[in-house]
């Protein structure tokens, strides 16, 4: 039995309607596929963004707010973690690495975060271009920040229009390095020394004055040729020259060790533990009245649950849409079959068995379903990709929508249901009396 000539002829005869059928099926499948693929891309992207943030320690408050601030760089007001508390983390034996994160400033909607050089290394695995900041007025930018090395910019307090128009700090910061791409919102971030954030907000520097003195004493003690040469001058000249020299070689103290006694608060600390046991220990130790510690994954799981619930609702809506589309197509096919009934009656008169009629109609509907589902799969993937790109552009979070088992399962489910429903018109025409159809009644 070869029903294909009849099927292809039927497809060609009402090609506009058939294209509409396929388009309807494609849209119905695309909605489901797009929602599922996009939801997964969002989960994967957000999980990837949180990869480097094993534990967050912050002042007590909303964990979601802290995650949104630190991982997704979505600014909101959070309490500050007191200096003595976070400085303890730097000396904690269970901590492999810890860095303060100080938010609040921005440049053209790019968050400016105060942290340490160690954090930059940890986050992006080194610099793609330039050098690490060595002064308060230097910055390392994320891979997607539209600045070049050597550019200067003026940070503003806050974010958005208010920040741009009214709250400039009056400090010019020079870009000295660019991080490797991380595929996270941090690609759009500008990182400055945490000391710079404290400085522009008129807070303590985080280092004692002795830090400089100690360094100079150390330099003197080394008895460098330069200093030996100074001894040959008279006292006044030597004193004057010593001041010039001190100015030229003033070393700016950035990053740890900090002065634990005179340390400003920070919105959050990112902590990388030495071990899993250590991670749970840190999480437990820093859950106090003055601090909170948590795994961002915990917050993400909660968010995924909410996302999952919303996704489930959307999937049910998509399923409802698909059911409506299938019902509409079925009704249209049944109407179309009334046009075809005489043709199939003629085939019966020419000797076609009922199975041929049944197979032809079933195959006709099945082809529409398969083509529609296949196009819907591609369309859904394309829409999810486009939405992902928009999300990526807006959040900096790398998201790639892929077609996985759930999407294939969804399309396959639609196809199977379509195959089953295709039996309805096939069976109805299969049972139609031939002579009645031949007479056109």
């Amino acid at each position, binding site marked *: 039995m070869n029903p294909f000539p009849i099927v292809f002829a039927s497809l060609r005869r009402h090609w506009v309607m058939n294209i509409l059928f396929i388009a309807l099926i494609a849209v119905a499948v695309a909605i489901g596929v797009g929602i599922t693929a996009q939801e997964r891309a969002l989960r994967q992207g957000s999980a990837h963004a949180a990869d480097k943030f094993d534990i967050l320690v912050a002042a007590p408050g909303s964990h979601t707010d802290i995650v949104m601030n630190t991982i997704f760089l979505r600014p909101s007001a959070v309490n500050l973690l007191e200096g003595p508390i976070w400085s303890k983390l730097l000396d904690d034996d269970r901590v492999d690495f810890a860095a303060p994160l100080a938010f609040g400033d921005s440049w053209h909607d790019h968050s400016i975060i105060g942290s340490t050089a160690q954090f930059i290394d940890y986050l992006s695995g080194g610099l793609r271009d330039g050098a690490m900041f060595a002064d308060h007025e230097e910055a390392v930018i994320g891979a997607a920040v539209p600045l070049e090395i050597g550019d200067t910019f003026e940070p503003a307090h806050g974010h958005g229009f208010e920040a741009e128009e009214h709250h400039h700090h009056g400090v010019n910061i020079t870009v000295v390095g660019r991080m490797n791409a991380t595929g996270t919102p941090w690609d759009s971030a500008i990182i400055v020394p945490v000391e710079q954030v404290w400085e522009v907000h008129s807070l303590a520097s985080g280092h004692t004055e002795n830090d400089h003195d100690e360094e100079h004493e150390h330099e003197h003690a080394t008895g460098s040729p330069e200093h030996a040469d100074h001894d040959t001058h008279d006292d006044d000249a030597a004193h004057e020259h010593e001041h010039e020299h001190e100015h030229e070689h003033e070393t700016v103290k950035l990053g740890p060790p900090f002065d634990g006694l005179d340390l400003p608060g920070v919105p959050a600390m990112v902590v990388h533990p030495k071990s899993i046991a250590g991670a749970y220990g840190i999480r437990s130790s820093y859950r106090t009245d003055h601090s909170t510690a948590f795994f961002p994954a915990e917050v993400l799981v909660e968010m995924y649950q909410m996302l999952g619930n919303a996704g489930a609702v959307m999937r049910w809506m998509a399923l409802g849409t698909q059911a409506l589309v299938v019902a509409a197509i079925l009704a249209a096919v049944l109407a179309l079959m009334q046009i075809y009934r005489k043709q199939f009656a003629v085939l019966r008169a020419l000797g076609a068995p009922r199975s*041929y009629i049944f197979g032809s109609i079933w195959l006709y509907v099945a082809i529409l379903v398969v083509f529609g589902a296949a196009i819907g799969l591609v369309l859904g993937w394309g829409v999810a990709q486009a939405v992902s790109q928009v999300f990526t552009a807006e959040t900096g979070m790398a998201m790639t929508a892929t077609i996985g088992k759930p999407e294939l399962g969804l399309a396959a489910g639609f196809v199977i249901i379509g195959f089953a429903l295709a039996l309805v018109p096939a069976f109805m025409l299969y049972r139609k009396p031939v002579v009645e159809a031949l007479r056109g009644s």
Partner: protein
Amino acid sequence: MSASSDLSMPASTSSETASAIKTGKGNSSDSDNSTSPPLAINDLSLGFGKQAAPILSLPHLGVAPGTLLGVAGPSGSGKSSLLYLLSGLLRPTKGSVHWGDTDLTSLSEGACDTWRRQHVGFIFQDFHLIGELPPLENVLLPAGFHGWRIPADLRARATTLLDLVGVPTNRGSVADLSRGEQQRVAIARALLFDPPILLADEPTASLDAVAADNCADILFAYARENNRTLIVVSHDHTVIDRCTRLLQFEKGRLLTNAEAA
């Protein structure tokens, strides 16, 4: 077009096709199409509902093989119903329809489909071709009812048939053909398996006089020269005048059963 011996199948093609059919190539069949079976109708009655009067009643009718039988009568007289009964598409309320040893009324629907495919060539008033397919594919359409691939000799026969009815095979689709050409394609389709019985329902009613004459020539010449039984329902004297025997129906009853002059 001349309706002469050039319409009979070339011996080689005809025998090859018959051989292909008998050996199960393309369209399996156990039938012997070389001769038409005689038709015997006994006590035939067709009605709808137990109380209603029959729409067709035929106490007895015998038709010898190779008869060119015309069926005439006004609309609603039961002419088309007779064709459907003779092809097994309709089951009579009572009575029997025998084609040779085969009693159509005792066959299952599937067996009747098979018998019809092997023994009957149907020609309709409105051709009922598949407009999107080219002439050759239309002629070959019945070959796809039971076989996936069409045997080369059957394809060759379809080409020869189209050549014999005067329709070029290289036309894009039958929708581009004239009505006369379309009916000739329909005739070629009916002749694909060289059926012993040809049933035609108003084959010229949709054609102009020239095309009608042409189609009638082809159909009757083929039946006559290949000793096929042709039963043709028609109002058209072009057709009726070519028949060797005529049945005249009125209100479901046979009024006249006469040999042609």
